Every structure is written in structure tokens, then in C-alpha cells.
């Protein structure tokens, strides 16, 4: 302002631009614009995009994890139900099998008993038959022997008669 006096100051119109300032303004603004557009706004946009992605990715991951957990739960529930059904079936099967085994054993035992009985009866019958046969043969022989003895002695004499019988019996006992 050394070179301005009041008279000059009065004449200054603040609306008239200075060439130097116009040039500088244009250069400065352009410079700033180019700098910000090249170095600043793309970086901020990048940060924004990455942040959005990170948040979205996080949500997606969480959703996925939840889905997986749900699926695992379903699977476990299903498996549990299946296992329970299976156990139930097994129990019933075992029971049925047990019953069948008991029934089977009982039948077998009965059969065995019947068989043993039958065998015993057959054996008894055979022995009886054998006894009958041998008895018959022996009785016949004895009868014949007795008859021959009786015929050999006098049949009137009672004492003889009894003697004969006694002797027979004695012989019989001796022959044993």
C-alpha cells in the first residue's frame, strides 16, 4: 500500500478481477483438481468399496455359517431319530427272536421228551417181548420136565407127589 494513496483507493473497484489472480486461480484450481482426482478420490472410493465388501462379506459369511449350523443340527436330529427308530426295531426284533428261540427250544424239548419216551417204550416192549419169549420157552421146558417127572412117579401118592414137586423146585433152585 506504499504506492497507494487515498485518492487511488477510492477508485479501486473490487469487482474488477486482476489478470494475475485469474491466471493463478485457474492454475491452482486445475492443479488441485488433477491432484485430488488422481491421488485422493480413487483411494477413498477404494476404501469405501472395500469396506462395503468387507461388511457384505462378513454378513454373507455369517449367514453361511448359520445355514451350515442349521443343516448340521437337522442332520443330527435326523440321525438321532433314525438311531432311535433303529434301536426300537432292534429291540422288537430281539424280543421276537427271543420268543422264537424259546418256542423253538420248547418244541425241541418236547420232541426230545417224546422221542425218549418212545425209545423207552420200545425198549420196554422189546424187553417184555424178550421176557415173554424166554419165559415161554422156559415155562414150556419146565412144564415138559415136570410132566416127565410126574409121569415117572406114581401120581396117586400125595407124598410122592409133593416130593416130586419139592425136588423139582429144589432142582430149579439148584439150576439157578
Amino acid at each position, binding site marked *: *500500500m506504499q504506492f497507494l494513496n487515498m485518492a487511488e483507493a477510492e477508485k*479501486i473497484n473490487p469487482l474488477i478481477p486482476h489478470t*494475475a489472480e485469474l491466471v493463478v486461480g*485457474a492454475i491452482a484450481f486445475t492443479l488441485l483438481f488433477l491432484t485430488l482426482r488422481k*491421488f485422493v478420490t480413487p483411494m*477413498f472410493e477404494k*476404501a469405501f468399496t472395500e469396506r462395503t465388501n468387507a461388511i457384505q462379506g462378513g454378513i454373507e459369511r455369517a449367514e453361511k455359517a448359520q445355514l451350515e449350523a442349521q443343516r448340521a443340527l437337522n442332520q443330527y436330529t435326523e440321525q438321532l431319530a433314525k438311531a432311535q427308530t433303529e434301536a426300537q426295531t432292534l429291540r422288537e426284533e430281539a424280543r421276537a427272536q427271543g420268543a422264537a428261540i424259546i418256542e423253538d427250544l420248547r418244541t425241541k424239548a418236547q420232541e426230545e421228551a417224546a422221542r425218549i419216551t418212545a425209545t423207552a417204550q420200545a425198549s420196554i416192549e422189546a424187553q417184555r417181548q424178550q421176557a415173554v419169549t424166554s419165559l415161554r420157552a422156559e415155562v414150556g421146558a419146565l412144564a415138559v420136565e415136570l410132566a416127565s417127572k410126574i409121569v415117572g412117579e406114581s401120581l396117586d401118592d400125595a407124598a410122592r407127589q409133593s416130593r416130586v414137586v419139592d425136588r423139582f423146585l429144589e432142582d430149579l433152585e439148584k439150576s439157578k
Partner: protein
Amino acid sequence: MRELLRSGTGGGFVPPSSADFELPPVFGHNIYTTKPILLVFLSVILISVFFILASRKAAIVPSKLQFAGESVYSFVRNDLAKDVIGHDFLRFVPYLFTLFTFILVNNIFGIIPLLQFPSMSRVSFPYVLAITIYLVFHYVGIRKQGAIKYFKEIMFMPGVPKAAYILITPLEILTFFVVRPLTLALRLFANMFAGHLLLLVFILGGDHLLQGVIGLKLISPFAFGIGIVLTFFEFMVQCLQAYIFTLLAALYIAGALADEH
């Protein structure tokens, strides 16, 4: 400098005038080294360095610096560009972002100690900015709708009775080609100019009172007090003007992009 001026005019109080905005070159007689020009260059450096540092890492979890830079950027991006322009706003964000930060920093220079001069109170800078908007929104309109349709719709607004064109057409032409950029530039300039002048009045006035008789010395603190209050007020105005300028720029671009005005 004012001391010189005062002594030259005999010791009376010299009210601040437009002469206070005509600052001499700092270095020699080079007209490219006046205070406002140096301030503008300083603002370019400050803004560039700050935002490059803030955005360099572009981390998902921002540092404090990145968060600060992002706040400003997302304010311009979302609250100005996205809300006003809507679809396809992203390609205008660098321009609007530059506009906002450039005006804001240069305005705030007005209350930063030692700097204390709002570069935007030099009318040339708002003019330059207005010219860029002028170019941008006409270019966008022509690109979007074709030159003929674009100018036709400006001159002959659709859906208006033919007789009304006598009145409307000159007004529309005036609005789109003269009034809009001019008011934009003048609003910013006038606010910064008046604000700085106001601060000068109270602070230089307070200073002058301090050098007066004892009674005047007592009044001086009030003048300084008002000067301080006004400084806060100026801060608000400076932010607001940066916002308004950018908002209107976004509105004009949105208007040019829209099918009908």
C-alpha cells in the same frame, strides 16, 4: 502498512476500504507474489498434502487421519453429490470435492492467525470457479441432451404457453448464461469481502481507540470483543459459503442432467 497510511493522512481513523484488499507483492515487484496468490498456492499444497496423506492407505478400518479426510470426502460425496445429482453422481465427485475444499480452506484463511486474509475476497478467484461451473454444467447438458435440444429447452421451456415465451425466453437465457455463474461468484466474493471488512473495522477500530485518550481506551476492549465474536461468526459464514457454492454447483449440474428444466 496502515501505519504508513495513517501517518500520511494526519492521524485520524482511516476506515477500512476496498484499498485494504489491494495488497502489494511480497517479493519485490512480481505481481504473482501478492498475499492472496501465495495463499491460494498454499491452500493447494495444504489440501493436496492433507488428503493424499489421509487417503494413501485407504484402509478398511481408517486411522484418525483417514477418518478425518473421509468425513470431508463422504460429506461432499453423499450429502452433496449423491443427494443432489443422484444417478451417475460419481464422476462429478472429484470436481465438487475440489470445489468444496478449495473454497473452504481459502475462506478459513481469513481467520487463521498470521494469514488472516480470505483469498476468496479477491473477486478473481470466485470468477474462476464460476467459469469452471459454467463450463461444466453447459458441457454436461450438451453431452447429455445434444446441443440443439439443450439450448432449445433453455430458451423455450417446454409446457409453457407460446405467448409467454416473449417474457420467459430472455429471462431464461439471462439466468443460464449470466445470472447463475455471476451470482455464484458474487455471493462468495461479497460474503468474504464483507466479512473481512467487518473484522477490519472492529479490530483496527479497537486498535485506534487504544491509542486515543483514556476514555477511548476503555471502549477499546469492547471493539476487540466484538471482533472476536465476529471471528466465530465469520468461521460459520466461511463454511456455509463453501457449502452453498458447492451445493449450487451440484444443483446446476443436476439441472443440466435432468431431461427437463
